[in-house]
């Protein structure tokens, strides 16, 4: 199976998710004490930068199956917005507030954006441009 060269979107995406998870563990491990938010903010910023880098690298790929990518990613986005919303609800239910809530909410935003990118990328990388979409609409 011949494969064209693509940026390491999956690897970078997993690193980005790992940084988000590390920030969450750092905050959760110190409950109920207030801890400096700086490490969690640095991890979140690095994760967001990796997301931006991933999207930029992907945008520069020529002849990428964007039709298929968006077709899949938009539904995945819907699903992960629901999941992120449920986690946010749990934070609010547990009276998480202030800086910790901001960091955790922004982490959820990165999570809810990056996972659909990874799913859309994995599907679209194997897609030929002349393939019709799964709904019968050209990809």
């Amino acid at each position: 199976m011949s494969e064209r060269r693509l940026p390491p979107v999956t690897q970078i995406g997993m690193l980005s998710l790992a940084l988000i998870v590390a920030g969450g563990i750092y905050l959760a491990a110190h409950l109920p004490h207030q801890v400096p938010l700086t490490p969690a903010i640095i991890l979140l910023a690095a994760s967001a930068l990796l997301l931006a880098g991933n999207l930029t690298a992907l945008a520069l790929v020529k002849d990428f199956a964007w039709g298929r990518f968006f077709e899949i990613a938009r539904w995945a986005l819907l699903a992960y917005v629901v999941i992120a919303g449920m986690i946010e609800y749990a934070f609010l239910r547990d009276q998480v507030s202030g800086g910790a809530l901001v960091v955790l909410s922004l982490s959820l935003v990165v999570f809810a954006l990056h996972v659909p990118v990874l799913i859309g990328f994995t599907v679209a990388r194997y897609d030929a441009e002349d393939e019709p979409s799964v709904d019968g609409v050209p990809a």
Partner: protein
Amino acid sequence: MAQAVVSVPAPHAEGPPPGAIERPDFQIVPRAGLVLVAVVLALLIAAIAVNELWPLAFLHFVGGAAWTIIDLFLGFVLGPILGKLSIPARIELTTRLMPKMVLIMPTVVTVTLAAGWQLGNHLGTVQSSYYLHGWLVASYIVVGIMAVIALGLLEPANIAVLVELKKPRPNPQVIERLMKRFIYTAGATGAMQVATLVIMAKLTVG
């Protein structure tokens, strides 16, 4: 049931065109299953809202058991069997199994983690003053690694293999590659589930 064809190198005697085999029609996301998912998520929201011990414990135990068993079964039982099946049998099993996994795994993981976190809050075990706090942090790390593997490798492979199978002429090499990725990552998370079981057993008996 409607059929479609999948290209394979081997010739075929009758029915579909040469170099093609049949596969059953399927929905990538089974619509009927979405109702069940909505019911389970509604139960989860209700359990968190009332913050009572038994519904939280029930959802956490049931979700955690399902997550562990599915991962271990896929990785160590079904995976090796799948690798030994003929291509038509493999494709038929894949088209019946993977759409269900699209709904089951994210739901089971969300229920286990959300109910587990709320349960920890209810019991006070998530507090850093808890005497087994180190064990709890270890469980966060194990679950975090499993989540990254599942979100970055397993779930995308699951969706991609189904989209490939849905095409008029799917590529068997792509399907095989993605299925290997799915089964290997399920095996890796299954192995990590053993660590989760050790930690949870310690937290239960103290």
